[in-house]
């Protein structure tokens, strides 16, 4: 009874801040906010969508006073559980703050609100011959604020960098409820790099309410190529060889045989895939002459490594057709099995071959087919482990298989997450790559920003009471729905 009353008064207080139509509190209305693109469901107490920095600050202060957790959320496309509310509380959806506040083509910068969709920003920047470089696969849906929280990557980040290389400053509401600016347009300001510390902090030390981003000039020419290999080892060998030859491709992606099986029926013209154990997608950009020269070198390297098919595209529609397999792999794989657990591990490029072999072996041992679709150029793997939740024990065992794959990445000198973040999912793996002293230093960073147990609790670091130890499969899996691309 007392809880219900407290809940009602919390909702009423939130409504006073943002207006009644920006607050959800009935369970049926909040179903979509119980999950993101990771596994698991957690019901919040309320969902609120502020429109201004002042409202965000007021909400945080209110939650602090009420002793209620808050969870900032963008589009909810995150794969590590960053936007879910394991301890309930108020989800602060940043998706009403969608304005592009400033386009500064001369200084190649933009100032945006956190709810601006990644792809939309690039579309607007295109009018000025510019684009926003970090392009996660979910870019048609995901938001800049979410990108900042996760330090998102995407296929073009080997050449162009990840979100932190394109974030110049931001206005942030801190866990205390205070709003402040860090960084800004002018670079190399004296002081500690608070902007750099904030990017990738997964919404645990503040909520960005305005973001200054760097824009990148569009390349004159883009050349996309696919190379098909009869053996996986040849493809991963080609990845290392391309880099070793001094080429930094704009993108270097790989899809394996299982993925090819899934997408091939949907791509009737893609005969180059037939019989391939792996297909590489390579993109080079820059001046026309440079793309021609680099593409020739890439083809030579691929053929040296054993490629039996090689296709090049320069026109937009053709290039999109070549990208189609990579971009729609997940959707296509969904036809082959009822459930997928998508992993995110990263290994040194030169270790791709042995690690992929281990992934294959783990899949066989557990009896799960595993499809590999990933950013080969960065060594960033995305094994997709197929399973069926309806079969008893499979959900638990798929998590175990995932843990073994994580360990294989760590043993190869890699890391537990290349771009999806730690969130809830990978907290338990943090001690595998960081010592107690390393983790203590990260706690100090949190403390310096005034992090509290209420501010997006249970994420990233393995401490925290009442949090459990990571993702657990619930009794009934949520309907993930369309549009949760990765």
């Amino acid at each position: 009874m007392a809880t219900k009353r407290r809940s009602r008064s919390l909702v009423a207080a939130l409504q006073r801040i943002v207006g009644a139509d920006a607050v959800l509190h009935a369970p049926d209305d909040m179903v979509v906010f119980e999950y993101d693109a990771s596994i698991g469901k957690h019901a919040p107490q309320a969902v609120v969508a502020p429109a201004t920095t002042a409202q965000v600050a007021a909400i945080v202060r209110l939650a602090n006073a009420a002793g209620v957790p808050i969870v900032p959320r963008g589009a909810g496309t995150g794969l590590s559980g960053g936007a879910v509310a394991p301890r309930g509380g108020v989800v602060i959806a940043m998706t009403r703050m969608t304005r592009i506040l400033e386009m500064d083509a001369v200084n190649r910068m933009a100032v945006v609100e956190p709810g601006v969709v990644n792809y939309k920003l690039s579309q607007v920047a295109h009018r000025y011959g510019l684009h926003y470089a970090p392009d996660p696969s979910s870019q048609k849906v995901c938001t800049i604020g979410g990108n900042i929280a996760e330090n998102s990557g995407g296929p073009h980040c080997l050449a162009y960098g990840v979100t932190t290389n394109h974030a110049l400053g931001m206005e942030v509401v801190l866990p205390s409820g205070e709003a402040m600016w860090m960084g800004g347009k002018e670079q190399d300001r004296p002081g500690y790099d608070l902007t750099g510390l904030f990017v990738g902090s997964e919404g645990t030390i503040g909520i960005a309410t305005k973001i200054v981003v760097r824009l990148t000039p569009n390349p004159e020419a883009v050349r996309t190529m696919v190379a098909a290999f009869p053996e996986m080892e040849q493809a991963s060998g080609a990845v290392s060889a391309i880099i070793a030859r001094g080429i930094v491709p704009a993108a270097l992606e790989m899809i394996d045989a299982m993925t090819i099986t899934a997408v091939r029926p949907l791509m009737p013209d893609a005969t180059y895939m037939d019989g391939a154990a792996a297909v590489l997608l390579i993109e080079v950009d820059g001046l026309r002459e440079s793309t021609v020269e680099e593409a020739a070198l890439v083809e030579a390297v691929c053929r040296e490594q054993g490629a039996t098919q090689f296709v090049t595209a320069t026109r937009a529609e053709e290039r999109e057709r070549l990208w189609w397999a990579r971009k729609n792999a997940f959707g296509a794989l969904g036809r082959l099995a009822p459930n997928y657990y998508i992993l995110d591990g990263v290994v040194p490029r030169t270790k791709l071959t042995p690690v992929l072999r281990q992934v294959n072996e783990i899949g066989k041992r557990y009896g799960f087919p595993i499809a590999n679709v990933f950013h080969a150029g960065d060594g960033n793997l995305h094994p997709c482990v197929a399973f069926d939740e309806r079969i008893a024990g499979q959900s638990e065992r798929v998590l175990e298989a995932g843990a073994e794959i994580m360990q294989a990445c760590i043993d190869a000198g890699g890391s537990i997450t290349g771009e999806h973040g730690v969130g809830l999912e990978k907290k338990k793996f943090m001690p595998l790559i960081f010592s107690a002293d390393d983790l203590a230093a990260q706690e100090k960073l949190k403390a310096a920003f005034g992090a509290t147990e209420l501010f997006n609790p249970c994420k990233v670091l393995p401490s925290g009471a009442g949090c459990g130890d990571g993702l657990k499969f619930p009794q009934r899996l949520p309907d993930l729905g369309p549009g949760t691309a990765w």
Partner: protein
Amino acid sequence: MPAAAELTQVLQAIAGATNCLSAAELPLYAVDGMTPRAAVYVRSVEQVAEVMRLASREGLAVTARGGGTAMRQGYAPARLDVVLLTRKMDAVLEHVPAEMTAMVEAGVTLGGLNAALAKHGQMLPLDAPASSRATIGGVLAANTSGAHRAGYGTARDRLIGIRIVDAAGTPVKAGGKVVKNVAGYDLQKAFIGSLGTLGVIVEATFKLAPLPPSRATLAGAFRELDEALAVARGLLASGLRATALDLLNARTWASVCQRTGNPTMSDRRYILAAELAGTPAAVQRMVGQVHRAITDGGGKSHPIEGEQAQAEFWQALADTGVDMAQPASMTTRCGVLWAGLPSLVHGFEAMAEGSKLEVGLDAHLTAGVMRGWWWAEGGGVPKDDTLAAEAVGTLRKAAGHHGGYMVVESCAPGVKRKADVWGQAGPELAIMRSLKQQFDPQGVLSPGRFVGGL
């Protein structure tokens, strides 16, 4: 607080007698005129940890020093007991060319590292003055950068892993060995530009870049600033991706020419210096485009030919303030956007003229960062600190006029006593103070030197 002799004894036990400097040598390692009580070469992470444990136990103020090329940054130290010398920690721990990454000890010099990487066709594309002496640890701690940030970014865009020893003597690592890594907080960023006030950097791992198959350097000399900037603006608007695009004034150009033998073009006041890199045909086209833009824009075009001459040119530019023959008595750094650049350039030059000083300017046009090197008239040392100190205030105001900032990167101790080298700390100071409090609660790491007196 142990006496100097006792301190030296303890340090000798840690690092060996030959690695501890004698009392006679200590004044060479003074920071802003403050001589330390001891100076010790360390060779390993464990030794650094032992020194820091000692420092924490005894409340000793410690400052790390690599090549000593950026020691004049920041406020004068509040205290200085031990200078930790890192030059002997100079191993390249790992370089896997196929990974395009390298892990090095902090005492490796930037020049030494690049010489080793070049043999495999790779580079760490950072610029630093006196790169044959500047160490990786120092470059990171000072966030040193130069012209090539246009094409390759700065330290924060290259660092993928770091190991430090904190104030209590605990080794801590952040990041890793792979180019994509979002495991945990991006703690590495805290140490870049921190001037060693949060921890002593002992190891660093970088994402390297391939040496481009072809490079060209072209200078365009103009009579008027507007002409030079218009040409630069036009080139950038066309989508040109130069790996360096700097605006120099005549004083900087003269200094560089003196050391490299390029023609001074003394009837011209402003020079655009561009580097273009990529495949040969692409570079050829870019050179043609830049050359045409310069000549169409009223400028005189001067190519710098040959790999050697180009490398010397860009290093000479970075070295302008540290030229042994004419070291700058003060170096400033401003952040300024396009709109504010012309008035800032004119303002700085007017200030110099009015105060009987000379100023060499170097603006990295794609980054909005401008460096200023200051000499007394005739290229010597100003007799009076007051002039320089007053200049600082005026210059900072000029930069602030357009929302920018100004920092004095080096100056005489006398100037530091009279002027604020960092400028007023903004709203970020509260969190910065918290960070310092978390990582160095006793204030043993370079106390008093950082922004806000941290």
